Each structure stands twice: as structure tokens, then as C-alpha cells.
């Protein structure tokens, strides 16, 4: 067992070099090479045809929309679009592909040599060089059955669903990222977030990490400071949330540092990230590219991207995310700090949608950055993945503004929404949470509260109006928080004959 090093000690001794392969699932209507539907979550093996199953005699045909989406991604990543490129077969035997090969691109990617400017939490911009973005197809989904652990080790057999097989993917590969130092984990998270933002902004992917629309393999290697040659890298797979990317890179830097510091050597291998233990375990030794026996796909002809085609796509590029941020910040009137917090929490889209659905920018921020973010932290998920929709926030806000519920009850309503009890209004009805604003019912509670604190009542009569809070508190206690605080205050003052 290697002695552990803290992250700070690891960075003090070694210079981390990162690299990422991000797979983006395109949201085309059909698959990359077949006209079967590209739909998530359907019954197994209902979105497949003969091409996806690799049956004998089938001929794949390339999806034009998928090529255009790939070119758009290339352009948004400031890449050169290849005038001529081909598909290649990547041969391997594993039941996630029924063909015994994945149709991919090898030495002729559709886009190459670009960059993406990534903004870190404090506003620093870090340029990540993009080596290539290539087209390929996704694989089917395996479920390992039996065995003691339910994991593949010890499984008795596996079940395969090919609905995902053939879904168009774009794999974005960075050049080695040097110079991030102690900010490497933060940069890792920011880079994947930036790629996700780019593809979502282009509208070419649903970009939901929790559904696997955006998946990241993170390469980490360490070298002594001042040395040019890279150290041996590990490639961590299955890092499928922004938080996981940050944690996995941090973990691997510490793991490598401990091994190297103890005089050991790093094995070039794939590692698997485990969200539960926040650690990686060894996968297989990394195959050489030769082992995949790539060769040009003989069933498909090359793709040629003419100047006119590429330029017509370039004209379709939406507002870049950095410019969008600038515009939204102004529209929402947030301070630098407020806006950066929103961006870092990954909640810009949610707030934009909430504002579009009718809430004010400040109300949207209050909910997403406050109660929803707090609950997400407790549940250890990204706030956007908690299950609260912009429509829920707007409805909660309306209920509060109409005086039907107060802030405290709203939190209880949110409990109900997250427990699957329906819309906020339905939860209010089912749980009987509406505030009591009926004067008769309130008056009884007020009289009770005043009788319990006669000294406070005297103070208020004597002009100390601010003491009314203690009586309001008493009323809230009696009504279990369901009273309309504003109305209660008015009634108390009225009862005591004091003007506000």
C-alpha cells in the first residue's frame, strides 16, 4: 500500500497533465447509419433494425443531419473541417456491438485542430486545445445478471439492449493540457461543462449527463516539474457528472503522486470511477490502436465537406456561450459574484427557462441558488438533476405572490413535488398547506398569542411596533406556520389599536 499524499503535497511535487475524450450523443431523429429511431428510454430492442443488429447483407447509410451536427460542433470548437474524411472500422469483440466492430473514424476525423476557451470559477480563461472531433456510433447497453455483487465480476450472464447501438456520437479529443497545476480538477470540471454548454447551445445534443448524452474519459499523468516528457497516463472512464470529473481527476492526481513518490511506476491502463467510494479501480491494460485493426469502412463512401456546405453551416451557428453569458448577466442585473455563482452551479439554463416562464430574475436566482441548491447538496447531485423544473419554481412563486402559501410552506410544497405528489398546486391541496388568511381564524390565534405575552402587548401599545414580531411568532406557532404573516401583523396592530 502506497503512503497517501494530500492533494497539495501531490501538486507540490508533480506537474499534472490532463487530456479528455468527451463523447456527445447527437439528438438526431434517427441513428448514425440506419433509419431506426434515436430515442432514450423505450422498451429494450424496439428501436433497432437489421443494420443496428449487424445482420448479414445490410448496408449502412450515413445520416446527413448527424454529419451536419458534427460539422457544427467542429466549427463551434474552432476546428478546421476536413474537406475529405472517411469512416473506419474499429474491431473488437464485446457484445455491446453485434457487428464485432464499431464504425468510427480513425486517422481522418471530420474536424481537427481547434480550441475551446474555458472560464474558471474566478473568471480566469484557460485555452484548451482540441486535437480532433470525429464521428462514430454508440454501443448497446449491457446489464450484468447474477453473481454475488451484481457487478460484472462473478456475473452469470449479461442481457443486451441495442436501442442505443448506432446512436450518433461525436468524440471530442483534447491535446495534452499542461500548466493547470493545482487548478487541474477545477479545469477538468469547467472543460466538460464548457463542452456540454457548446453542444447544448448548438441544439445538436440533449446534453444530459445523467442520461449519458455527454460522457467523459479523463486522462491524467504526472511528471516532475521542469521535465518536458509526459509521465505514464491513466484513463478514467465512467465519469459522468461534472462533480465526478472534478473528483476523479483530483483522485487520480493523488493516486499517481503516491505511487511515484513511493518509487513505484504507473501502469498505462483504464480505470473505473466509482461514485460511491469516490475512487478508481483498475480496468484493463490500455489496448494499442493496432489491436483494434482499424481499416477504412468499405461499406461507406467518404464524406467531402465543400466550402459552401461548411459556410452555410457556419452561418447557422448560434450566439457563442461566452457572449450569451454577457447578455444574460446584463438582462438579469446580477452582480459579478451572483452571476459567477449561477454559472458555476450550472444553473444558467434553468434560470433562463424560469425567467422565460414568467418569474423575475431575482426570484429565479433565489430558488435555484437557495433552496434547490441546498437540497441538491444534501442529496449529493447537481442542482439541475434534482428533479425540480422551471415550471415548478414559477408555480411556487405564483402561489407565494397570491398569498396562498408563505416561504416556509413553499419549502414543504417542494418536499411534496420531489416526493412525486404532483404539481405545487396539487401538493398544496393534498397536504392542506394553504396559509390561513381568514381573519376569524387568525383573530383567535392572535388573541391567544397576545394573552400569552402581555408584556410584549404593552410594549407595542406603548409604541414599540417592532416588538410585533414576537407576537407574529406566537401566532405562527399556534397555526403551525400556516398563517399569512403579513395579514397577522396587520391584525395584531389593529387589535392593539396601534397604527403601523
Amino acid at each position, binding site marked *: 500500500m502506497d503512503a497517501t499524499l494530500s492533494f497539495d503535497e501531490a501538486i507540490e511535487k508533480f506537474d499534472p497533465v490532463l487530456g479528455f475524450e468527451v463523447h456527445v450523443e447527437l439528438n438526431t*431523429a434517427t441513428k448514425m447509419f440506419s433509419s*431506426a429511431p434515436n430515442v432514450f428510454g423505450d422498451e*429494450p430492442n424496439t428501436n433497432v433494425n437489421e443494420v443496428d443488429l449487424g445482420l448479414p447483407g445490410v448496408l449502412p447509410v450515413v*445520416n446527413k443531419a448527424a454529419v451536419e451536427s458534427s460539422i457544427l460542433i467542429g466549427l463551434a470548437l474552432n476546428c478546421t473541417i476536413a474537406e475529405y474524411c472517411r469512416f473506419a472500422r474499429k474491431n473488437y*469483440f464485446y457484445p455491446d456491438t453485434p457487428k464485432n466492430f464499431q464504425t468510427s473514424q480513425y486517422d481522418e476525423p471530420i474536424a481537427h485542430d481547434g480550441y475551446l476557451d474555458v472560464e474558471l470559477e474566478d473568471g480566469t480563461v484557460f485555452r484548451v486545445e482540441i486535437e480532433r472531433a470525429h464521428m462514430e456510433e454508440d454501443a448497446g447497453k449491457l446489464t*450484468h445478471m447474477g453473481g454475488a455483487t451484481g457487478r460484472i465480476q462473478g456475473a452469470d450472464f449479461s442481457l443486451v439492449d441495442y436501442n442505443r447501438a448506432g446512436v450518433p456520437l461525436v468524440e471530442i479529443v483534447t491535446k495534452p493540457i499542461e500548466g493547470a497545476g493545482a487548478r487541474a480538477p477545477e479545469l477538468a470540471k469547467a472543460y466538460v461543462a464548457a463542452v456540454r454548454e457548446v453542444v447544448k447551445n448548438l441544439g445538436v445534443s440533449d446534453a444530459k449527463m445523467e442520461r449519458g448524452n455527454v460522457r467523459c474519459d479523463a486522462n491524467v499523468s504526472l511528471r516532475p516539474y521542469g521535465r518536458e516528457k509526459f509521465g505514464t497516463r491513466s484513463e478514467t472512464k465512467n465519469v459522468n457528472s461534472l462533480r465526478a470529473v472534478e473528483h476523479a481527476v483530483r483522485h487520480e492526481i493523488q493516486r499517481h503522486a503516491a505511487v511515484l513518490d513511493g518509487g513505484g511506476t504507473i501502469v498505462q491502463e483504464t480505470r473505473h470511477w466509482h461514485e460511491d467510494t469516490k475512487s478508481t479501480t483498475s480496468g484493463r491494460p490500455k489496448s494499442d490502436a493496432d489491436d483494434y485493426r482499424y481499416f477504412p469502412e468499405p461499406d461507406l463512401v467518404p464524406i467531402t465537406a465543400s466550402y459552401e456546405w461548411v459556410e452555410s453551416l457556419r452561418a447557422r451557428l448560434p450566439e457563442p456561450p461566452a457572449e450569451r453569458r454577457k447578455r444574460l448577466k446584463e438582462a438579469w442585473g446580477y452582480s459579478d459574484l451572483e452571476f459567477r455563482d449561477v454559472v458555476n452551479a450550472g444553473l444558467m439554463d434553468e434560470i433562463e427557462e424560469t425567467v422565460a416562464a414568467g418569474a423575475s430574475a431575482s426570484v429565479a436566482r433565489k430558488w435555484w441558488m437557495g433552496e434547490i441548491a441546498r437540497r441538491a447538496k444534501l442529496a449529493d447531485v447537481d442542482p439541475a438533476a434534482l428533479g425540480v423544473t422551471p415550471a415548478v419554481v414559477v408555480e411556487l412563486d405564483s402561489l407565494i405572490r397570491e398569498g396562498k402559501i408563505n416561504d416556509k410552506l413553499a419549502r414543504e410544497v417542494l418536499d411534496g413535488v420531489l416526493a412525486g405528489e404532483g404539481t405545487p398546486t396539487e401538493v398544496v391541496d393534498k397536504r392542506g398547506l394553504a396559509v390561513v388568511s381568514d381573519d376569524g381564524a387568525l383573530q383567535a390565534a392572535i388573541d391567544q398569542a397576545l394573552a400569552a405575552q402581555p408584556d410584549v402587548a404593552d410594549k407595542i401599545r406603548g409604541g414599540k411596533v417592532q416588538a410585533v414580531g414576537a407576537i407574529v411568532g406566537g401566532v405562527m406557532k399556534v397555526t403551525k406556520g400556516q398563517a399569512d404573516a403579513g395579514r397577522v401583523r396587520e391584525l395584531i396592530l389593529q387589535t392593539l389599536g396601534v397604527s403601523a
Partner: protein
Amino acid sequence: MAAINRDDVAHLARLAHIEMTGDELDRMAGELAVIVDAVKSVSEAAGADVPATSHPIPLSNVLREDVVGHVLSQEQALSGAPDAQSGRFRVPAILEED
């Protein structure tokens, strides 16, 4: 000069999941070496100015519009499977490779 030796054949056999005996490896190394040498004559004929060909007809951009077409039912999809369960293909447990 043979470009393929016995170790290369053993490696390829492992990648292709083919079990081969020692005798077979020896024989195949010899045969593949002859084939590779024969193919080499092509690279002698084609200079650096001749691009590699993957398709005999110079076509490009044979593309399909993104419109849903033919789909199999689950029953049809599984009809050729040696084994199936819960609407899925059932396959033997295989060591992790992904």
C-alpha cells in the same frame, strides 16, 4: 523477409478470439508471411502519390435524410437470438472489456 512472425500470429489469434495450437501458429506464420510478401508488390507499384483506396468507385456523400424509417418489433429483433430474456439478448458473462 517475412513481416509476420509466430508471435504476431499468436497476438492476432488472441484478438480474434481464435484458439490455435503451436503447430497451427507455426504453419500460419509461414503462410501469412507469403501472403504479406505478395501484397507488398502492390506498394511497390503504387508510389507515394497514389492515395489509398477504400472504395472502387470515386463516390462521396451518399447521405440519408434524418427521417425515421424501417424498425423491427422486439419479437422480430430477438427472433434470431440464440437466447433472450426480458426483451434483451442473453449472452454469456464476458470479462470486462468495454
